[in-house]
């Protein structure tokens, strides 16, 4: 229980830090970026919108900061992230949620796939360590240390441009299908998702794999695994004894990995011109669309928080030792 409460507290504080950081950062930055922004925007947007942006970032307001903060929190609580500059007059939340599902789909599938595949491979490579399969480890190291987008670029070059096996950009074939719950659209989405997915999975899989392999090797030197052999259990059961324990640190590392994976996925979206929050973020940055940047940052952090909360629940569920408080 204590672990649980602790994780909850950490999640809440992270959420609060994120929210507060998005409030403070634009106000703290040297050179007053908001003034610069407003200068650039003059003429492009209506005076009302400029006033709204000014209000959001505390420019030209006589309210004390703490009151601004309160308004900010109240707005946030109502799901109001302000108005996007680039996509004006759309609200930031509607802009983000229009794209979020693409990103969530990609990230979610990639996380699950890479975790399961990587862990399974790690179990195998750990079990057969000392065999020829050890040679895969440096290869995995190469993949692990290659940034997602570099691998994505290579995949595009080879499979899309050279071999024409896959489409090289976009999320679906906009010329032939239209979005909706129809088979043609779904098939197109699945086809277009393959390369981006492959590049994310290939890169993040190696991390899981190396981690799991090392944990397998470490766990296999524990007595209880030898004991399982001594009991005459069949190989797969012995492997399970080891894997069941070795997977625990993997899940504990989920928090870290998800953060990295999400960041990577945003960039991959960019490489493949895949629809989603990544493209939105780059657009927002190049257009100095601060409300949108803030919104994306918040939404992504919350996504990561929720995903790592799932990991934490999974961990407590899998490790009985965390369930009982022990007095040291």
């Amino acid at each position, binding site marked *: 229980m*204590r672990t649980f*409460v602790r994780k909850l507290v950490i999640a809440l504080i992270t959420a609060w830090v994120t929210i507060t950081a998005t409030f403070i950062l634009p106000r703290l930055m040297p050179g007053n970026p908001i003034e610069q922004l407003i200068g650039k925007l003059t003429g492009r947007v209506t005076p009302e919108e400029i006033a709204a942006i000014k209000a959001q970032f505390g420019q030209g307001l006589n309210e004390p900061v703490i009151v601004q903060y309160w308004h900010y929190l109240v707005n946030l609580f109502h799901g109001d992230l302000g108005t996007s500059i680039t996509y004006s007059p759309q609200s930031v939340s509607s802009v983000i949620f229009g794209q979020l599902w693409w990103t969530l789909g990609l990230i979610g599938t990639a996380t699950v796939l890479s975790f399961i595949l990587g862990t399974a491979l790690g179990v195998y490579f750990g079990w057969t360590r000392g065999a020829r399969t050890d040679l895969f480890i440096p290869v995995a190291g190469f993949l692990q240390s290659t940034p997602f987008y570099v691998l994505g670029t290579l995949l595009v070059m080879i499979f899309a441009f050279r071999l024409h096996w896959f489409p090289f950009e976009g999320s679906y074939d906009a010329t032939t299908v239209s979005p909706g719950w129809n088979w043609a659209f779904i098939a197109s989405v699945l086809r277009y998702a393959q390369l981006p997915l492959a590049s994310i999975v290939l890169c993040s899989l190696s991390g899981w794999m190396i981690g799991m392999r090392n944990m397998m090797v470490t766990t296999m030197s524990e007595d209880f695994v030898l004991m399982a052999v001594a009991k005459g259990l069949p190989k797969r059961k012995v492997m399970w004894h080891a894997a069941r324990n070795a997977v625990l640190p993997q899940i504990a590392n989920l928090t870290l990995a998800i953060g990295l994976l999400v960041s990577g996925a945003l960039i991959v979206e960019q490489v493949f011109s895949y629809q989603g929050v990544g493209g939105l973020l780059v657009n927002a940055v190049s257009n100095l669309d601060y409300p949108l940047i803030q919104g994306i940052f918040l939404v992504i952090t919350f996504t990561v928080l929720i995903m790592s909360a799932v990991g934490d629940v999974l961990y407590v569920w899998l490790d009985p030792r965390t369930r009982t*408080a022990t*007095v*040291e």
Partner: protein
Amino acid sequence: MNQIPANDAVVATTNGITRGEVILEATDLVRRFTAKGEGGLFAPKKTLVAVDRVSLALRAGEVVAIVGESGSGKSVLSRLLARIITPSAGTLALRGTPIDLRSRRTTAYANEVQLVLQDPFASINPVRRVGRSLERPLRIHGTPKDQVQARAYEVLESVSLTPPQQYLDRFPHELSGGQLQRVNIARGLSVRPKVLLADEPISMLDVSVRLGVLNLLRELCDAHLLAMMYITHDIASARYIADETAVMYAGQVVERGRGTVVIDAPVHPYTQLLVSSVPDPDQLTHQEHRATTANAVGFNLEGCRFSPRCPHATELCHTSEPPMVELEDGHSAKCWLVADAAQRTAVSMRPGPSSEG
């Protein structure tokens, strides 16, 4: 071995210390720990009493053995005496001078009271050469630089690591357990302390080298008139080395006595249990074992700590803490069984803790 002087009139002195003189005296030392209870953030905190009103005196040239199982508080006691842990209550006096336990431990105190730890493989920094670990205490205690090495040689020789130059440049992993424990003892001795506390110094060693280290401790105690405390769970080794033995259970001293009396004629049921549990090939016949299941949980904090496991426990034992009763010269036990009838009724009238002074 020449342990208890046959006659107290045979008085040896070194550095102005007389054999048998009380060097370090602890009175009613208490150490409580608070631990988080079960059930989330808001659970009440539990207080654990690791050391409960322990009094003892360490005398020059004598070894006091503290015997107890793991969790009996014997290691905490040694750290209280070394002042690495601050006592919750009680007093300490070094050569008659009371120590202010609220102040920081001074270098001077560290100079007088040294502690040798249990695990020789872990208690010397693995990335440093042995010589450096040995010279550090000397440097801290202000030995001039040019004398440090000479003293290190001297002290290595005194623990029979000869020739010393062979050991100074080695790394800990290059030495055996027995050699490392000697280095460990040498480090404790290098600053010429008056008190040496040894926390299970032989339990991690190979059986064949244990006796050598034990003998070394005894010799050093006699030669330098050290006041020594020897902590162990091995009763036989306590019997072998000690001038006085105290048995600890659940943070309290439950029986103590001079010489071998505690082990040869134990009166406290716990000491009896301990002694009868030691494998003893010479007495294979009477192995009938007093039924005391270790499964019994917890300590009784109301009455006698041992009463839940004690085969002789009465109602009184469960409700009221027994006093430390003096049986004969220097032998006393904290048990209602040995308290005579008169005392029993007298004390049971006024329940409450009482401890020996």
